């Protein structure tokens, strides 16, 4: 049955349970109701008194009265009015009160042009401040490199603190004082600690909290080129709106996706974007380390490929079409191809894809029994945010990890060594932590469990009630897309071909086999058999520096593409702007502006990987076959390619069904006396994000984390591929017997999370 009420005579549809303001906003009819403290994701508070409407009753006994739309439950046939003088006066006067202390500094305020307060003030017609008293002035706090505070602009809607404390469960931000001297901030100056702090910028309806990174290279919002994009920094695939100007990316904002990120983003998603403007980003083709003309590089590469002794290496960091393009080219040339750098990563990808349909983040937020395995916040922060939402609704959370993570502090924490953790996952079906609920959900960071742990997770899931769901997360945007090709020992075959000298050349796409990718240790040895290799990538890396031929590619907001997220949801992103290959600093004019006469052209930025692959296919005379294969694979995976503005489409079940894997992944064998290795990550770390300076200024120290009962200043770890000497960082949160290092460390050693490791403790730093 359709429910409606009437606002100024117009029908407004609603869903029972909605309030009047919520329904009016959802119907896009809120032109007549100004509001501040209500926020679709944070709910109503009734604090600002701005959203007045006049309610008429059906009988004549009750006179009409003014009430707050955000506190009035929508009900059938309500008669509401705003177009009357007393309502309008109320709107105007309330905003005048809220503006009593506002500094009216719109011309120098970063919020100007996208300010809810500006909009509401204009909408209600308030223009004269009648109160002649002095304005209250605050001392602002330095909240770190990401969020800028200008407290004088506050209208005390409490959205910020409701977001930070109630939604994000942050503990270092609050509301201080009372009456007309309320302020919002930290106990003392210092960076905000929440991985979700950047959302303050979007929830604050005024210019109190603004984007500090955007501030470095600011433009008014009406001068920004914006478009629909998808976050490339982890498997969640949050929807974003990048904003660019004059060929450079300036900021990232949330783009609502009700089933994924809702109204929010994590700080990695918001602040990692400067990888596109990093000085180290390759923008020109390079041949043997020297900038070169693109045709020269392409020819050289084509002649290498013509020799027929090349292998191909894709990447879960690259989008679906580019990987398909590479796969198709390998196919045309009958060359070996792998989508990931190690057999371990391949097995991991397979196990991820073999899990039954994962819950959306919206479904996670509605779960009432949740088990989190590993440091979810550091891999896929918004998944951790969804868990917080569930906690807010009363869910019971159990965290299995080898250190006390952010989420572990919010639920029942079970400190476990990686080996014990895998065992426990296998036993979870009978565990009391999942009993008694309606909707059990298990969320794991894939690398913590490893292939064998993920297998155990799948088996556990089979024993749980049919509505139980599980999701596995990685910090790559397209593992699920790449996993499709990772099915049958590709990586081993590629490495085998290299060992047996069947190939002597490698074409890599967005991979860093010589740097920090899984299995890099082995690749460093293998690469001695290479006469050269080529790379298509958008960031600098060990591999990029060593590549014989380097073809720079467009960053994600500079091109179109598809990512497959952890649910198997295929999402499209659109090109938002075009990067210039060189920033124009004309020596003649001394300015960065193009010649007014149009004499100087903007050089075009790097093209997409598909462009390069297409050109290579042309030079190799296989273009038609390549295009055909590419179209075929794409159609197979994704019969109806989604639109960037759509919610995306799920991978067909037929594809998932491919992944009933024959060989059982074996867990590493660990003796009781052995040290176990686990991975240390933080929410801002990820290959692309690592070049974003402001975000990285918050990165924790690099070192070896271990429980403080170990008395050592440094340690040397020994792995099959190398040695690693690191300073020891004693860490109360670690489980005894476990050593945590970062991914680079694993790459160096040639080990994987959960592996036993040999360690020598040293007293000298």
């Amino acid at each position, binding site marked *: 049955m359709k429910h409606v009420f009437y606002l100024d005579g117009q029908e407004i549809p609603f869903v029972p349970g909605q309030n009047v303001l919520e329904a009016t906003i959802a119907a896009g009819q809120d032109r007549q109701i100004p509001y501040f403290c209500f926020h679709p994701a944070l709910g109503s508070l009734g604090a600002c008194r701005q959203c007045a409407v006049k309610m008429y009753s059906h009988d004549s006994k009750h006179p009409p009265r003014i009430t707050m739309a955000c506190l009035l439950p929508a009900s059938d046939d309500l008669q509401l009015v705003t177009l009357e003088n007393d309502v309008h006066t109320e709107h105007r006067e309330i905003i005048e009160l809220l503006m009593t202390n506002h500094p009216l500094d719109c011309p120098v305020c970063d919020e100007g042009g996208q300010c809810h307060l500006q909009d509401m003030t204009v909408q209600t017609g308030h223009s004269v401040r009648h109160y002649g008293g002095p304005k209250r002035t605050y001392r602002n706090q330095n909240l770190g490199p990401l969020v800028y505070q200008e407290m004088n602009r506050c209208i005390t809607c409490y959205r910020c603190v409701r977001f930070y404390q109630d939604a994000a469960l942050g503990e270092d931000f*609050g509301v*201080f004082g*009372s*009456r007309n001297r309320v302020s919002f901030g*930290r*106990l003392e100056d210092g960076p905000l600690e929440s991985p979700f702090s950047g959302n303050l910028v979007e929830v604050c309806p005024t210019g109190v909290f603004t984007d500090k990174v955007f501030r470095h290279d600011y433009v008014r919002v009406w001068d920004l080129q914006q478009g629909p994009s998808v976050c490339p920094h982890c498997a969640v695939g949050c929807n974003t709106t990048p904003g660019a100007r004059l060929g450079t990316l300036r900021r990232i904002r949330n783009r609502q996706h009700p089933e994924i990120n809702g109204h929010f983003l994590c700080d990695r998603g918001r602040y990692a974007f400067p990888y596109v403007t990093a000085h180290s980003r390759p923008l020109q083709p390079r041949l043997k380390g020297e900038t070169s003309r693109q045709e020269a590089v392409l020819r050289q590469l084509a002649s290498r490929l013509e020799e027929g002794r090349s292998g191909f290496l894709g990447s879960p960091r690259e989008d679906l079409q580019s990987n398909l393009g590479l796969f198709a080219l390998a196919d045309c040339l009958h060359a070996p191809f792998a989508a990931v750098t190690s057999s371990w990563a391949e097995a991991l990808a397979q196990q991820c894809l073999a899990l039954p349909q994962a819950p959306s983040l919206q479904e996670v937020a509605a779960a009432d029994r949740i088990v989190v395995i590993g440091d979810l916040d550091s891999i896929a922060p918004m998944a951790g945010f969804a868990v917080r939402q569930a906690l807010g609704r009363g869910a019971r959370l159990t965290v299995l990890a080898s250190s006390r993570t952010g989420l572990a502090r919010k639920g029942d924490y079970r400190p476990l060594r990686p080996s014990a953790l895998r065992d426990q996952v296998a036993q979870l079906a009978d565990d009391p932590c999942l009993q008694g609920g309606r909707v059990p959900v298990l969320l794991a960071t894939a690398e913590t469990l490893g292939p064998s742990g993920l297998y155990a997770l799948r088996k556990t899931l089979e024993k749980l009630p049919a509505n139980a769901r599980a999701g596995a997360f990685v910090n790559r945007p397209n593992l699920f897309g790449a996993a499709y090709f990772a099915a049958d020992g590709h990586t081993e075959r590629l490495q085998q071909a290299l060992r047996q000298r069947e190939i002597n050349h490698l074409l890599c796409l967005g991979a860093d086999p010589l740097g920090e990718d899984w299995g890099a240790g082995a690749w460093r040895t293998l690469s001695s058999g290479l006469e050269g290799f080529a790379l298509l990538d958008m960031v600098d890396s060990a591999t990029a520096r060593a590549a014989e031929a380097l073809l720079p590619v467009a960053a994600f907001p500079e091109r179109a593409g598809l990512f497959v997220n952890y649910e198997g949801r295929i999402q499209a992103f659109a090109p938002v702007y075009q990067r210039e290959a060189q920033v124009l600093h004309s020596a003649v004019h001394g300015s960065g502006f193009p010649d007014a006469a149009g004499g100087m052209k903007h050089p075009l930025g790097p093209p997409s990987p598909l462009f390069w692959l297409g050109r290579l296919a042309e030079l190799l005379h296989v273009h038609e076959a390549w295009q055909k294969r590419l179209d075929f694979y794409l159609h197979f995976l994704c019969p109806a390619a989604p639109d960037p503005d759509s919610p995306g489409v799920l991978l067909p079940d037929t594809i998932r069904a491919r992944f009933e894997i024959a060989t059982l992944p074996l867990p590493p064998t660990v003796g009781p006396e052995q040290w176990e290795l686990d991975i240390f990550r933080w929410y801002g770390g990820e290959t692309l994000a690592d070049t974003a300076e402001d975000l990285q200024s918050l990165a924790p120290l690099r070192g070896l984390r271990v429980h403080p009962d170990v008395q050592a200043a440094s340690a040397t770890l020994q792995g099959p591929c190398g040695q690693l000497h690191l300073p020891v960082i004693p860490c109360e949160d670690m489980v005894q017997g476990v050593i945590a290092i970062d991914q680079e460390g694993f790459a160096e050693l040639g080990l994987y999370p959960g592996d036993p490791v040999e360690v020598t403790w040293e007293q000298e730093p």
Partner: protein
Amino acid sequence: MSSPTSTVDLHDDALLARLRALVAESPVPEAAISEVLQALQKARGYIDDEALQLAATLTGLSPVKVEELCTFYSLVLREPVGTHVMRVCDSIACHMAGAQDILTQARQHCGVGFGEVSRSGKLTVIPHVCIGMCDRAPAVLVDQEALGPMDKQALTQLLAQLEADVWKPS
């Protein structure tokens, strides 16, 4: 109210035992926060950062939450104060009855700003919200004692007594 230079040790066993008892008596630890703050303020004169951290640890609240409370309640002091604290009501009834004059006179007497310790160390004057003595406006609260109506003469006398350490609550 103890002296501004109170050096009560926060690790003093008796104090800690008292605070722990307050927490134990409360239905949930968090709910004991006002009592804990009161006891700490009584012992130490004001809530310094160390006391705030201790209150947070004892009740399981985050330090931010404790600071939210401290700054919300105007009776909680976060800065050192003089031997006596005089809170001068500046809400509407007292304002109409001349609270501003009382505040000015008191501040001039102290020779420092509101909330600061007078040069003699004896007094801190703080403007305050309504203390429920509107019928005897303008009213002041000296330590725990409400007095009013105040006028120039009564205030002069009161200040002299406070300065000379001879003022006694009735």
